[in-house]
């Protein structure tokens, strides 16, 4: 028994903030003090509050240290570990009450409304030690399934729980498993989609880094349910920590006989391999992912045949994403009713969102389905920084749409998001404030799909490119009102005619912004004006003569010599020379330079 546990976040965010050096320094100091038998230092998966990394938590006090530096290690050990005095200055400020007392992490705004199911072990256990996972009820669900349940029982529980795919379209997981179970064939495969590619979404990475065994256990359960003995985890090569932890986890599970032959003496065999993706977004599409595992260029195939009938290597296959799997062992252990008690009628359970963009608390949050956008953005996320006005939120990554401020009270679930022109996607949530141009945002997402289109079908390969070019015309101020109609027509064409989900959803960012922010498009087209002041071609920097003191600072800083004027006289900007870099505006001490 240890008197104290120090958990250091080993997620990608904190690792890039040097958390592993901090971990090593801690281990060293603890050893030097001879405390290694009383104090246990562990690296864990992501805590979620990535904006404040590197993060460390010390139990049993629950002291939540944020933005820890290597130099802080000695102080933490000397004061907190040896003398029992919490280092208040390093505490995450939300955890310090007004009276100076420490609040439990779960009482802070960021965590209060969260309900961690998929992320339950992230930031709690050492992902590189299977024993810790087992200590937190790990593999109990697999044991239960193999010793007490039939495959059909398993599928029934999953179906009854209402679990839907967390990777995009939200297909009911139980039904998917049932199809694969019903497909005839001796050889079947269970695949895990860990090719998380939506810009800004990183919940799957966090789960793999923080709780890899949950995914392995769930895949084994799925394999038992459909009658498979081989699984593949398709994980992108850009996730080195996830790959490393998965590799370790698979090895440990094999050593304990939790993968391999005759698991729990039940006669059930199952093993797993990792396949690395080379960073193509389209490989998150199920058929493209399987084509890639087979060793070919990752391109989607027409469906039908559906993977449940003819998938990987032509065999019945199920594919679920990481977050979906992470829910499965919990559902088995706690029951379908427990899971179904969370969320909304058609979207049960919780969903992890990656908060990003113009929001205070960027990071990962897991909330029950049905939580409103307002709760996520304001209560959990802390709202937009610098007192800016919230304008829209983008969900579903490049496949999703922009949700305008007036719909902020929409409870988030699969069907509501579709209804308002967006989608759940993998759970990226990007917040935009008044400084964001919605045409520019649509262009950003579309550029992503143009780049990531595999190039197989005409609609996506050329259609998205042409759509992108039309958006460029809008932001350049050269589009006509007819172009807007043509854009809309092309959007619907691409949705109807594309081969796979990537193309079918690619126009969503454009369609949703055209729908909710048509006035912004029209301002670009009719008035040749970008209301948010983002689109460079439509920008004019001007000097307000009344305010200009003639200090010459702007003229001296202009990189292209576009500003002229005599000392102590108002200056002027030559619009033909100006490259709209904005340096003058930044430098001006009198607020005399404005964007028009």
């Amino acid at each position, binding site marked *: 028994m240890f008197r104290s546990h120090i958990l250091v976040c080993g997620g990608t965010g904190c690792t890039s903030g040097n958390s592993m050096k901090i971990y090593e320094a801690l281990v060293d100091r603890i050893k030097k003090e001879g405390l290694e038998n009383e104090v246990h230092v562990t690296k864990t998966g992501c805590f979620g509050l990535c904006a404040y990394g590197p993060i460390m938590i010390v139990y049993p006090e629950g002291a939540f240290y944020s933005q820890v530096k290597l130099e802080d290690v000695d102080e933490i050990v000397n004061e907190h570990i040896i003398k029992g005095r919490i280092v208040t200055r390093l505490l995450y400020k939300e955890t310090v009450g007004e009276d100076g007392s420490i609040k439990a992490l779960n009482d802070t705004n960021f965590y209060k409304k969260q309900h961690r199911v998929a992320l339950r072990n992230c930031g709690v256990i050492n992902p590189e030690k299977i024993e810790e996972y087992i200590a937190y009820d790990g593999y109990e669900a697999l044991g239960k399934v193999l010793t007490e349940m039939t495959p059909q029982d398993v599928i029934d529980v999953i179906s009854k729980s209402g679990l839907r795919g967390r990777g995009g379209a939200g297909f009911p997981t139980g039904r998917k498993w049932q199809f694969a179970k019903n497909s005839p064939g001796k050889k079947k495969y269970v695949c895990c989609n860990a090719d998380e590619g939506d810009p800004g979404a990183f919940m799957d990475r966090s789960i793999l880094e923080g709780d890899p065994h949950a995914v392995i256990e769930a895949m084994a359960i799925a394999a038992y349910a459909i009658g498979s003995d081989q699984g593949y985890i398709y994980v992108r090569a850009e996730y080195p920590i996830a790959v490393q932890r998965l590799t370790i986890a698979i090895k440990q599970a094999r050593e304990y006989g939790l993968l391999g032959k005759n698991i729990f003496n039940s006669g059930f065999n199952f093993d797993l391999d990792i396949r690395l993706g080379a960073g193509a977004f389209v490989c998150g599409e199920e058929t493209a992912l399987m084509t890639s595992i087979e060793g070919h260029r990752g391109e989607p195939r027409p469906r039908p045949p559906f993977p449940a009938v003819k998938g990987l290597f032509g065999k019945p296959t199920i594919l679920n994403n990481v977050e979906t799997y992470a829910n499965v062992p919990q559902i088995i252990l706690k029951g379908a009713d427990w899971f179904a008690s969370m969320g909304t009628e058609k979207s049960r359970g919780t969903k992890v969102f990656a908060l990003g963009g113009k929001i205070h608390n960027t990071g990962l949050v897991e909330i029950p389905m049905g939580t409103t956008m307002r709760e996520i953005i304001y209560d959990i996320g802390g709202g937009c920084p610098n007192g800016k006005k919230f304008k829209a939120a983008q969900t579903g990554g490049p496949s999703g749409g922009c949700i305008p401020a007036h719909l902020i009270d929409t409870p988030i679930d699969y069907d509501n998001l579709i209804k308002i022109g967006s989608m759940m996607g993998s759970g990226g949530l990007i917040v935009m404030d008044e400084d964001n141009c919605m045409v520019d945002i649509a262009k950003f997402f579309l550029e992503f799909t143009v780049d990531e289109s595999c190039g197989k079908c005409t609609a996506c390969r050329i259609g998205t490119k042409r759509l992108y070019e039309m958006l460029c015309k809008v932001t350049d101020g050269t589009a006509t009102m007819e172009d807007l109609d043509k854009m809309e027509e092309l959007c619907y064409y691409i949705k109807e*005619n594309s081969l796979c989900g990537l193309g079918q959803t690619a126009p969503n960012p454009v369609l949703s912004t055209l729908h909710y922010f048509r006035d912004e498009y029209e301002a670009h087209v009719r008035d040749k004006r970008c209301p948010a002041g983002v689109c460079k071609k439509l920008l004019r920097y001007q000097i307000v003569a009344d305010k200009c003191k003639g200090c010459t600072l702007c003229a001296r800083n202009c990189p292209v010599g576009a500003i002229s004027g005599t000392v102590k006289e108002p200056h002027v900007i030559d619009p033909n020379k100006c490259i709209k870099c904005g340096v003058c505006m930044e430098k001006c001490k009198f607020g005399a330079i404005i964007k028009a």
Partner: protein
Amino acid sequence: MVHLKINNIPVEVKEGTTILEAAKIAGINIPTLCYLKEINEIGACRICVVEVKGARSLVAACVYPVNEGMEVFTNTEKVRKSRKTTLELLLSDHKKECLSCVRSTNCELQKLSNEYGCDENRFKGARTECEPDSSTSYLVRDNEKCILCRRCVAVCKKVQEVAVIAPARRGFNTHIACAFESDLADAACVACGQCVAVCPTGALHEREEIDNVRDAINDPEKIVVVAPAPAVRAAIGEEFGYPIGTNTEGKMFTAMRMLGFDKVFDVNFAADLTIMEEANELIERVKNGGTLPMFTSCSPGWIRYVEYYYPELIPNLSSCKSPMQMFGATVKTYWAQKEGIDPKNIYVVGVMPCTAKKFEKTRDDENASGYPDIDAVLTTRELAKMIKTSGIIYNELPDSTFDNPLGEFTGAGVIFGATGGVMEAALRTAAETITGKPLDNIDFKQVRGTKGIKEAEYDLNGLKVKVAVASGLTNAKQLCEKIKKGECDYTFVEVMCCPGGCVNGGGQPIQSAYVRRNVDLRSKRAKALYDEDKKLKIRKSHENKAIQELYKEFFEKPGSHKAHEILHTSYVNRKKR
């Protein structure tokens, strides 16, 4: 059986049938671009989209299997508009060089664009820009005309199992290229030209030599000799509207003379010559314990295949030059001597159903007279193009025949153009040579037909001869693997690079995917050759009078020293280590 309705017409089809096939049964055509029956079924181009009641979006008819009670609509406003937009998008990234394009009037994109009235450039924007790859002597790829249907990729990978081309890059930058985007000349391409034969547009075509040939004809110094391969006569008529499988040999000879060729000979003659040498070589190998099985060496694509992929089997290849090369060599030695012409002034043109022949003529050890055996190779298509641009009304031409002496041929020479033909011709001669008795039945039917691999066993006077015939490199590969592993004991193996043999070569008239879906080009064209064989009085190579004379006057006997110098060649290991 599955019951469905297409445009409200009830149809009953087998389970697993696609909407495309079911529609055909209902008398409805759905346009396609990327679809190539059994070879490329990938649903990529989206031109075949149709509406299915209850479906979330439009579906690709070429790959969508029917199901019970399905209601399909192929001709709604939405479908027509979608198809038109697809075409407009394709055209927005297309070179649109239709006026001068080699495939104009025989282009699937052009035809559909015309049908759908794509006359307005609605989607102006960036266009793929790249230099055509003309690194080889046989083929040009112009990706600015490519619509990325991938029919070439599929045929290269699935039919020939060579797979030297594939899509590279992604999104709008996707294009078909060799590995690492190298030149085709640096890839292990066998030059078969099957990619050209399936290309719906002008993105792939042979390296044209029409201008060189015209220059030679216009050169008063040059004696220009032309000779068509056996398979050319079975297909050239297609270029002039004749039904597939019409033999228009007589008109072809007339047209060749009208084009200004000085002598019109026939490679069929050299095919007979090849049999004399090849049959002799086979008998020698059997008698003297040479490397067996012996492979035929008529197909230059097959030769390149062995050189690139199975160099260890090079000793199995017959050392005989191909009929075309034998023909050129004989013209520039025997005939030059006989006519008293300096071989320097002879210009030999082969008309071939083949693109690999354009490479073959550039091989080392193919210049018996000190000058290249063959100066120019025209594909069947190029000859037709020459005829068209010369104002010759092909269909109204009177028939004529070849010039002597290098034109005379037997039925054995004619059937070289179909898979199994060389084998049958060789068997006719070998059997009679070994037994010394005339054959009762000279039709070796077991080696005929379009089956990928055919096997037969014959007893020639106590000598058991086991033979195999393969066409298409997928089948050739199977045979090579078996032979490498010693799992078979063939004596003689015929391999033709292209499926069905030369009649289906990469230089033959191009038929659309629609025609290829409904007609077996291989057997129809082959039938034209077997019909001619049947009609001919002399059907065995060794009975060809001109051949007998040639040996008497010049080569002495098959396999003589002189024959070896002029009619045989050598091979190189091209495998990259």
